[in-house]
């Protein structure tokens, strides 16, 4: 599995480098990133790469620095985190800051939910983070509004004062994946990851996998 994912990673890497030049709003700094995160920084489901377009500048800076210092992507089970850690190892502070600024200036592409509506529930899926069973945005709403919204906002737009990113620009799969990482201790368990630890603690308040799916289903209605 791990091997397979790394292979896909490199195949796509090669495939995409050819068409790099068209990333217009973004400077050369971004070229390596585009391989996985897409030319318009819209993210790529296949590679579990989140959308970056419209991501808050301060959040991107913090995450890139965390990856660089090994505060994030520090667990061998977190394959994608490890990939990121490798990919940003050589970025300078200046590059990080200017990348974050460029990305924040882009208009986010609103990710259409794949698993939100009852109609789409029966579509078979191969991704392990996508549920085959049903999700319930209504029950997710209760969790979201009581706990999550306290930091990410009732509309999911994030809150800089609380160091909490917006959630609406991300795909449901990515959100599910990260919630699982947080609750399994693959993210937010490094002693220096202050805000990650906060999120990990909150992710663990979701009692089970169904609750994670439900809460994400609700986020996708925002």
């Amino acid at each position, binding site marked *: 599995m791990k091997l397979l994912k790394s292979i896909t990673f490199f195949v796509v890497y090669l495939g995409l480098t050819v068409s790099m030049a068209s990333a217009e709003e973004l400077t050369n700094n971004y070229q390596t990133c585009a391989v996985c995160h897409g030319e318009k920084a819209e993210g790529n489901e296949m590679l579990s790469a989140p959308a970056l377009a419209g991501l808050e500048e301060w959040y991107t800076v913090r995450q890139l620095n965390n990856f660089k210092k090994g505060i994030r992507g520090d667990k061998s089970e977190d394959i994608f985190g490890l990939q990121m850690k490798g990919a940003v190892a050589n970025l300078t502070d200046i590059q990080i800051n200017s990348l974050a600024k460029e990305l924040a200036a882009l208009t986010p592409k609103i990710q259409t939910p794949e698993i939100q509506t009852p109609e789409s529930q029966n579509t078979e899926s191969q991704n392990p983070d996508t549920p085959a069973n049903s999700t319930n945005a209504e029950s997710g709403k*209760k969790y979201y509004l*009581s706990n999550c919204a306290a*930091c990410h*906002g009732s509309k999911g737009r994030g*809150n800089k004062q609380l160091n909490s990113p917006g959630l609406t620009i991300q795909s449901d799969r990515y959100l599910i994946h990260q919630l699982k990482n947080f609750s399994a201790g693959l993210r937010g368990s490094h002693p220096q990851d202050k805000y990650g*630890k*906060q999120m990990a603690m909150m992710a663990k308040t979701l009692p089970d996998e169904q609750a994670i799916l439900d809460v994400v289903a609700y986020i996708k209605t925002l």
Partner: protein
Amino acid sequence: MSQTSKRTTRNWKTYLLMIVIFAIGLLVGKMNIDGSATIVGDANRYQKSAALESTADNNVSFGSVATIKRRPFNGQVHTVNDGESIQAAVNQAKAGDMVKVMPGVYKETVYIDKDDITLTGVIVKGEWPVLDGEKKLNDAILYSGNNFTVENFKITHYKGNGVMGQAGNNFIIRNNMIIDTGVYGIFPEFGKNGIVEYNVLTGIEDAAIYVGMCDNIHVAHNQVFGNVAGIEIENSRHAIVENNFAHNNTGGILVFITPGLPIKTTYDVIIRDNFVIDNNHENFGAPGSIVAGIPKGTGILIMAGDEVTLQNNVITGNNNAGIIITDHGHAANLTLDPEAEPNSDKIAILDNVMYNNGNEPVNEVKALMLTKLSNRGPDIIRVGESKESCILNREKYLTFGIDEFGTCAFDSTYGTKTYLLEKPVEPRKITAEERGKLAYYGICAGCHAYNVKMVGPPTQVIQALYMENPQGIVDYITNPVKKRDDYPEMPPQNYLSEEVRIAAAKYMLDVKK
């Protein structure tokens, strides 16, 4: 897919849904046992003693029968005139003193942490003393002392609370007008033995009268209108709510267990002789808060409360439903609390006057009523479990879900005049360890529940944000900054001593439920 075929599918779905609903209806109909032959409850439940029963006036509860005895007054009187500070006078006062406030406008927060203080407004030719928060101050009156009386004030334009009790016992809050004060109008929290009477409250965005985590309470002769919730008895026991007029709120009278609070039960509540009329106000509660989940048009709402008896109320013109009996699972905006029993059990609906309710039921209620082939909302609706409940004269009302209620063995509550205590409760003895708990119960839990959004963010969230950092909490609550658009501001707690603040912070980080 073409436009037309899409529409057909949708129609199809609607039909399917209707069929399903009817099928459920049949099923519900089949499963429903007619409980009317079962007699439920103890016939003597509200007949406390034979001696009481024999007195002639005992069958009525009219007039003010409930009182808390005060010691004969022999303290000093401190008079406050327009332009002077009420707080300064309170600071001067000793236990047993009275602070008299003359007509005028007072722009301050008054904090009373001494026992036996009476704060009384003097009304002269219709001129009241006014406490005006100018939409800047948070609270008008905060008390933590025991045996506190506050009366005759007009309180307006505060952002937080009109009168908030923080663990004070034997309180009397009467004859105040509270207008547009933000979150709670009158809010005794974690107090025992108290009266809330003859107050008029309007324009409150949560509960106008909010009895939270209290015991032995009497709420009578109040008028509440134009609030989200009129009167709310929450996580409290032994309470009587009588002779009140609740009109044009989103919900008139509520009896709740709110999950996530440190005290987990609500039981032994009598609601009688109230007018609960036209509670159809648009819900203007803070998004995501518990009261924001109350459907407008709700007369009386019982959620998870036990042993609640309704008698002789006039419940009319509530467009969603007259009485709703429900559990935590069916309530919007709530996460479950494993330690709180989620059902409303032992509900008794004695004789009440109900008509003209349910003119515009919310969709969920409408769907249920369809199964009864009615497109009106009900006088009484029960969703979720309700064991050992009973009703009298059920044939008078349009109902849903109460067929299996038994017939009550008692028909009156008047044998029980009051749950107030014969003797005032002794002041609490507070050890150092208990200080944090008391502050958390008495103050913080008024706005912070464990895993539910009340007024402030859930305690669980705060625990994540301030892991191992109680001093961080102290710094924040001493001088809070606004952090969240969709929450109000947190009022500063700098009136509390440093010692109490750190104790509360530590308790907040440790509390597990």
